[in-house]
């Protein structure tokens, strides 16, 4: 069982019911559960969207798009049924927060889906978990069953005359399905290959109907916004970055863990105070601030607030909230290689720049790490990555290129140290790497 970590600076909003037995519906009800859905029923679609806009909640999946605005794009009149889709395909390396939500507070996800459904007048919602989280499916299915039994789902929910159904399922192992259009393909029983946009999901989404698709943490936050009020929620964070979020601290920290902290919380403080600093008295070398696809930050760049705008200004991204901390013993080339191996493995092959780019980058970085590269290879790596940016249907190509560019730019010296047969100054290359040289 995974648990949330705590620190005096933590502000439990999404994690308010964690560890309190709220998987049981009666306990959830005792802890203000399903009151927000009733409130939303009174407010009606425009009222709900107004409250969401006031909360300044931005998508917790990585892109940080304002949630209220996203919901408002769904047309009122539509020729096909509308749907709400929860993206619980959490797969960005460094990220392990949605797991906690499903495990500790499954009803908050259900209630969030109901509210989103009321906002756009949908009749059906889907909760899609990643295949590796199979144990959570049981928890979610039980929660959905209990909600049906109480009349919160199904026909005439809360006696309002409105019908709403939820189906939960898992994927079967694919990072790319975490991308919104690939997820819809997967839910339609196909390979998770991304769709071209426009049209965007808000107009043509699942089964061709207008669809709200949100990250699990975003949806789980919705009932809390109605519990404490949109404006109050917004005040917890910074300007245009409302509320709190679950930050996943991993890597060489004394106290790695998932902590709920206000948006805009200082990254340096997050590492040294909340995470307890670097383990074994080592020095900090670099921080990947928002999951493996976000460009690396140097120790002198971490005195920033962790919200979408401030991290963006620092040349990286807040992403999915996965803060990966590297100490001085890490070989950046090896780290870049491991990151690229992942993207090469996960590229679906639909777009050539991504399919070929990730493969060549993996090969180049492998050779470089094993000591078989020449000076020109470093620029080739940069050139390859630059030519992937913005040239693919989905952001997987960008996700592979952006961190690579960051590593080359900020740690060029370390790349050069590997050249001309010298090999890795930190570690012996793995067997399968030297075989390639």
């Amino acid at each position, binding site marked *: 069982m995974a648990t949330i970590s705590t620190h005096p600076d933590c502000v439990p909003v999404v994690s308010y019911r964690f560890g309190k037995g709220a998987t049981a519906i009666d306990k959830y009800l005792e802890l203000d559960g399903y009151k927000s859905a009733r409130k939303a029923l009174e407010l009606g679609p425009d009222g709900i969207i107004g409250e969401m806009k006031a909360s300044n909640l931005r998508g917790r999946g990585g892109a940080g798009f304002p949630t209220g605005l996203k919901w408002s794009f769904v047309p009122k009149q539509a020729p096909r049924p509308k749907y709400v889709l929860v993206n619980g395909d959490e797969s960005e390396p460094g990220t392990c927060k949605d797991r906690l939500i499903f495990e500790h507070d499954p009803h908050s996800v259900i209630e969030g889906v109901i509210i989103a459904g009321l906002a756009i007048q949908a009749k059906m919602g889907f909760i899609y978990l990643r295949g590796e989280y199979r144990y959570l499916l049981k928890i979610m299915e039980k929660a959905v069953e209990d909600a049906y039994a109480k009349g919160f789902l199904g026909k005439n929910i809360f006696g309002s005359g409105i019908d709403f159904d939820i189906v939960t399922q898992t994927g*079967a192992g694919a990072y790319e399905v975490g991308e919104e259009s690939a997820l819809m393909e997967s839910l339609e029983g196909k*390979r998770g290959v991304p769709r071209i946009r426009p049209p965007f999901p808000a107009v043509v989404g699942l089964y061709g109907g207008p669809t709200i698709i949100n990250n699990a943490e975003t949806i789980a936050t919705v009932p809390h916004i109605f519990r404490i009020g949109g404006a109050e929620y917004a005040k917890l964070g910074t300007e245009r970055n409302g509320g709190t979020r679950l930050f996943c601290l991993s890597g060489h920290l004394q106290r790695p863990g998932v902590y709920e902290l206000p948006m805009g919380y200082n990254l340096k403080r997050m590492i040294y105070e909340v995470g307890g600093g670097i383990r074994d008295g080592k020095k900090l070398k670099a921080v990947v601030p928002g999951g493996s696809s976000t460009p690396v930050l140097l120790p002198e760049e971490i005195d920033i607030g962790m919200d979408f705008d401030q991290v963006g200004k620092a040349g990286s991204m807040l992403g999915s909230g996965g803060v*990966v901390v590297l100490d001085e013993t890490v070989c950046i080339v090896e780290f870049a290689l491991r*990151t690229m191996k*992942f993207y090469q493995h996960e590229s679906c092959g639909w777009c050539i720049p991504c399919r070929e780019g990730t493969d060549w980058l993996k090969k180049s970085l492998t050779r470089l790490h094993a000591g078989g590269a020449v000076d020109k290879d470093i620029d080739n790596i940069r050139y390859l990555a630059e030519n992937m940016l913005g040239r693919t249907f989905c952001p997987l190509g960008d996700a592979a290129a952006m961190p690579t560019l960051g590593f080359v730019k900020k740690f060029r010296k370390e790349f050069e140290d590997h050249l001309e047969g010298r090999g890795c100054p930190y570690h012996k290359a793995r067997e399968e790497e030297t075989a390639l040289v």
Partner: protein
Amino acid sequence: MSTQSGQPGTIFSPALAARFDKLVTLYPVKRSALVPMLLYAQDEVGYLSDPVIAEVAQRIGITELDVRNVISYYSLLRTKPAGKYNVQVCTNISCMLRGGNEILEHCKKKLGIPNKGVTPDGLFSLEEVECIGACSWAPAAQVNYDFHENLTPEKIDGVLAGYKAANRGTGK
């Protein structure tokens, strides 16, 4: 071949066949049940054998080629048997930083099999996998669907021994 539950012809247990009958009714289109159906079938049969693929294709109303096309996309779906206990060690960045590679090497030695290998008795298989979502509790591994976190070589020894003992307990 009939695929109605309770009738001869289905290769699945009556419980699973009944589950599949319901699964195809949950979605606006039948095909949406495909990925969940394949996973449940794999859990019961062990892997997606030719008869499994044939029956799933028939239940959904698509060709076997369509089914295979989908299977090849998803990393959890397999068309060859794995060990009874499939040990999946994460070596992605957060795990790598805290010794994931060492855990993988240790498992290779301990089980005497390479990555993607199966032990001769069919009890264990080993796989190096991408991020499993246990980054803050790294290094981590999954055995079938169970998570094992904050691993050390000693700890994974205990985990493997536990599965071995559990298997003896089942009398197999």
